[in-house]
């Protein structure tokens, strides 16, 4: 089910990339090697807009910084041998980490991680391939409104982090709500900064300037609690989430 959803995102990635003028190897190689939807869309978007290599890569890596957090939060799923750790790391994405974190027992945790990560990897790359094939047949992407599909995909990825609705696992609703409003403030400030800067700064840099919006988060009032914590949600970046232990804003 999850894999189908990821596959569909993959199709849109491949189709958008090729229809907007990238050669097929670009989306295909990216999906095989990068394997991270948000970062791939972000870098592609910036590159298509004429951003330099540095800006496109930086934006992608900022988005993927959360993967390092998951790596720390999931000891054991990668196995003991160096080789196993090297290849299974590639399967680390939001969803495989979240599902693995939900499992208590180490052996099961590893099995879930590998199964979920592997299925998503297959779906993502198959989807991209389908998208590349479909995108090649589109003569006029603008007439089909494909340029609206791209921001829409990104919006769908970020929406859960902005949502005001309660989430499962929030046993501390007020803290969570306060934390969310800090995130929303930062996001709004950042988006306005980027828009205002776009006519003046070179392509790609306005989005990085948006990170200044992080200053709009209010300084923390309560000291963070000593961490005992399931990071199931805490680290889920595009989810912007605060687990029960997480969010003081």
């Amino acid at each position, binding site marked *: 089910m999850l894999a189908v959803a990821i596959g569909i995102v993959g199709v849109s990635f491949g189709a958008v990339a090729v229809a907007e003028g990238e050669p097929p190897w670009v989306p295909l190689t990216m999906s095989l090697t990068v394997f991270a939807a948000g970062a791939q869309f972000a*870098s592609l*978007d910036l590159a298509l807009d004429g951003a330099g290599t540095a800006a496109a890569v930086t934006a992608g890596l900022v*988005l993927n910084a959360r993967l390092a957090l998951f790596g720390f939060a999931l000891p054991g799923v990668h196995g003991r041998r160096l080789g196993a750790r090297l290849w299974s790391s590639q399967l680390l994405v939001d969803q495989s980490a979240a599902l693995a974190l939900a499992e208590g027992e180490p052996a099961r945790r590893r099995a879930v991680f590998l199964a979920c990560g592997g299925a998503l990897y297959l779906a993502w790359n198959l989807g991209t391939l389908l998208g590349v094939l479909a995108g090649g047949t589109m003569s006029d992407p603008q007439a089909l409104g494909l340029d609206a599909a791209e921001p*829409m995909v990104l919006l769908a990825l970020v929406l859960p982090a902005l949502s005001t609705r309660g989430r499962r696992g929030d046993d501390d609703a007020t803290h969570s709500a306060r934390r969310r409003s800090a995130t929303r403030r930062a996001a709004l400030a950042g*988006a306005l900064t980027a828009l205002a800067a776009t006519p003046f700064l070179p392509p790609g840099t306005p989005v990085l300037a948006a990170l200044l919006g992080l200053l709009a988060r209010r300084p923390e009032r309560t000291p963070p609690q000593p961490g005992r914590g399931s990071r199931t949600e805490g680290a889920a970046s595009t989810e912007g989430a605060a687990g029960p232990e997480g969010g003081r804003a």
Partner: protein
Amino acid sequence: MTLLAVVLLAAGTYGLRLCGPLLRARTELPARTELLLADAATVLLCALVATSALMEGQQFAGWARPAGVLVGAALAWRRAPFLVTVLGAAAVTAGLRWAGVA
């Protein structure tokens, strides 16, 4: 997208993935750092949504695209499935262009 950009992004992303498993650190990152990184990702994605919905290069992209994205956003807010939101956004934009709205 240049080959160099793809290679750097891939290598950097893999490096980030490898941090945990290789260092096998027991160290917990402070909760504040986690939250900061989470918010950085959210802020960056939102800025990308805004700029790619409204701007084309350094100019306003015209009304058709942001209108499509707005409809898609409304669909997403009503909890429509992902595919419906994306196709809806594209369809509205395409329809507006067909009707002569840039």
